[in-house]
């Protein structure tokens, strides 16, 4: 979107709303045009492919600018002031930090080589800790680049402390098969929001773990119960003495044979069946779970006296995902047709130069090259659909579900000085823990 677009349509725009009374809640609006986002994402996808991913810093910056500018609070939109150059530099600095870490982990795994499985776990924990650290610092970067009414947000707190806290929560989560996760989320959100500031106005988080637990327990039960039932049923039919003997021998084949059972008892089949049902139900219920958590999370956000409430509907999430599936289906059909035509015409055109019946460097080069190009186009296409049809839509749905009461608390806030580097963003990018 260019500045000229803004000016040309300025006449159509409604005059800014007059600030409402403190008592009446204000609904947030999403004012972006989907077409602009489509254009941005398609162009960005193509440029990412050409530049082997280097363009992503510019694309992410454009995406955030769009999403921030599309989010309107009482006639005033958010503004993203980060730049792609900051992200690029942050990424390069993160590489400078991570390469020695990887090298150290490698040497450590050699030093303690006897227990190579253990060293893999240590490496995983170290990198996951880095990921949490990076996520917290990336949040700080994004907040300091968010301007609303001429003031910046910022974030205090310690990323190290946050990472340690997040990692410690994994223990109860693992032990309870995820049942503790609502309390973990609450605790971490409290830490993040307590350290979030708009000017000199501090944030807080009012969501409660018990509440999220009650809202999401049904999803958990539906997902986990097939797995547990499968385990119980398999345990009932398994030939335990034979299993003990097989474990004694330490032979993998005989352990598998015991799990395979006989014609009547098929423990492995029951186990896999239960697990497959769990995965399937998890897949089906994922949008519902996402919506439940999002609504709960939005409803817990506080900034000074201003409080957010959300009336997010689960069906909106399903709508986005179903539309995505439909688009991918149509895209796949179109892709096969166009791809088939191009393959055919390419074959006809090159048949004179290349003997396609015999192995040769040109034949295999052309085949491998076109396969890679086709794969990249298809996957990038699907990812672009996902970004627009799911990610942007979910952002929009979340924004439009928000009602802020006592918005007057955001008047007369004083500015404070705060800046931060984009190293956290770079780390998060390199470790794959980044988000918009």
């Amino acid at each position, binding site marked *: *979107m*260019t*500045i*000229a677009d*803004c*000016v*040309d*349509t*300025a*006449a*159509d*725009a409604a*005059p*800014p709303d007059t*600030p409402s009374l403190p008592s009446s809640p204000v609904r947030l609006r999403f004012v972006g*045009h989907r077409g602009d986002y489509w254009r941005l994402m398609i*162009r960005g996808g193509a*440029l*990412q*492919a*050409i*530049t*082997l*991913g*280097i363009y*992503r810093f*510019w694309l992410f910056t454009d995406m955030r*600018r769009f999403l921030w500018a599309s989010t*309107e609070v009482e006639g005033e*939109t958010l*503004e993203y*002031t980060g730049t*792609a150059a900051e992200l690029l530099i942050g990424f390069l600095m993160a*590489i400078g930090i991570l390469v020695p870490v990887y090298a150290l982990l*490698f*040497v450590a*795994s050699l030093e303690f*080589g006897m227990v*190579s499985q253990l060293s893999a776990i240590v490496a995983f924990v170290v990198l996951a800790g880095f990921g949490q650290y990076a996520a917290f610092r990336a949040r700080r970067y994004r907040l300091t680049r968010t*301007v609303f*009414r*001429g*003031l910046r947000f910022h974030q205090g707190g310690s990323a190290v402390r946050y990472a340690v806290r997040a990692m410690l929560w994994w223990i109860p989560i693992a032990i309870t098969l995820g049942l503790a996760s609502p309390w973990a989320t609450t605790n971490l959100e409290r830490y993040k929001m307590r350290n979030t500031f708009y*000017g000199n106005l501090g944030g807080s988080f009012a969501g409660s773990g018990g509440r999220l637990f009650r809202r999401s327990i049904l999803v958990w039960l539906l997902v986990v119960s097939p797995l547990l039932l499968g385990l119980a049923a398999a345990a009932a039919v398994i030939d335990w003495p034979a299993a003990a003997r097989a474990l004694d021998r330490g032979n993998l084949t005989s352990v598998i044979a015991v799990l395979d059972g006989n014609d009547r008892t098929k423990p492995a089949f029951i186990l896999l069946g239960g697990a497959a049902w769990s995965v399937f139900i998890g897949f089906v219920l994922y949008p519902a779970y996402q919506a439940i958590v999002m609504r709960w999370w939005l409803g817990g956000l506080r900034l000074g006296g201003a409080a957010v409430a959300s009336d997010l509907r689960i069906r909106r999430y399903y709508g986005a995902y179903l539309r995505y599936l439909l688009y991918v289906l149509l895209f796949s059909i179109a892709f096969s047709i166009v791809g088939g035509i191009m393959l055919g015409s390419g074959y006809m055109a090159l048949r004179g130069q290349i003997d396609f019946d015999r*192995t040769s*460097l040109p*034949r295999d080069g052309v085949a*491998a090259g076109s396969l*890679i190009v086709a*794969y*990249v186009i298809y*996957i*990038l296409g699907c*990812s672009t659909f996902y970004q627009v049809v799911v990610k942007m839509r979910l952002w929009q749905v979340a924004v439009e579900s928000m009602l802020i009461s006592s918005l007057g608390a955001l*008047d*007369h*806030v*004083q*500015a404070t000085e705060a800046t931060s580097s984009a190293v956290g963003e770079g780390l998060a990018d*390199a470790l794959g823990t980044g988000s918009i």
Partner: protein
Amino acid sequence: MTTTGDGIFYDGRTSDRRKVAVDIGSDAVQVSAPDGALLAQWRFTDIAPLTTPAGVLRLGLANATAAARLEIHDRTLAGALLAHVKPTDRTGLTDRRTRVKVVAFSLAAIATLIGGAIWGVPLLADRIAPHLPVALEMRLGAAIDMEVRQALDSSTDGKAFECGTGDSSSALAARDAFAKLVASLEGGAGLSLPLRTLVVRRPDVNAITLPGGRIYVFNGLLTKADSIDEVAGVLGHEIGHVAHRDGTKSVLETAGLSLLFGMLLGDFTGGGAVIVAGKTVLRTAYSRAAEAAADEFGAKLMYKVGGDPHALGAFLLRISGKSGAVPHFLLDHPQAQERADAIARIAQPSPARALLTPTEWGALKRICAEG
């Protein structure tokens, strides 16, 4: 032309929203409160237009730490003001230029990185590997050894993976013959670390070298070989890998490639295929170079210890059979004919002294005959 109108002003110090009067002067815009007090005077050259949804012109000061903002909702006033502000990106031209620059910069970066991958990575690995302590390479070898044994030991009949470990006289003779062969080659090679050579129970015609001087000769190779010089030639080649520290080099090269393809390049959805393709082509190129160097080392070693250097070339041609099913750029070894030709070029006429007596050679061939 409109030069005055209404706007909304945030001064960057508080979040207060002020309705203001905007007055466009000759080189600056003045922002005044309704009571006439001057709130800000921004020079056109300092002003930066900012992204907003359609219908609003939002301006800020470039290079300012405070985020003071002036918003104008009046179309004509916004147009008049924009005419003064530089750079006015009315058509998105600046945006397009930035994108072209980014793409050009990226392509240059990609070219540099790929050049680094082709020449820089093997060069660095060559320079660094000799300086790494031998102890580190031995540890690396021990770690890889466990995994290789698990992967290769496919015996289900309870026979030991390693051949010639029995107490019988034939096992003893086979062991002695193998030790004699290895000793004469090792003596000529002048290595910085001791070799650990084994014959293992595998039907493939192959031999592998792990970091830290571990060489596994597969039994299939002994079965297929017609003369001791063919086995010695293969061993000489593998000792070449040990001397060149190719195991350590390959770890360094893999790390370098992962940095270039994966961390710096290819990090986008669908980039996985590009990463795999790039890594495969480059790794096999490194490997072909290392194999050719090992062939050269082996041929010279054979000449030095008095074996027939040409035997390896002939052996390779005999066992290669119907190769050529894989395109050249995906081969990790050069083609057999290429290798035989290269060996023929390197090797001088050999004095052809027998490395093992016919009896010893016979014993070695049967090293895996018993459990």
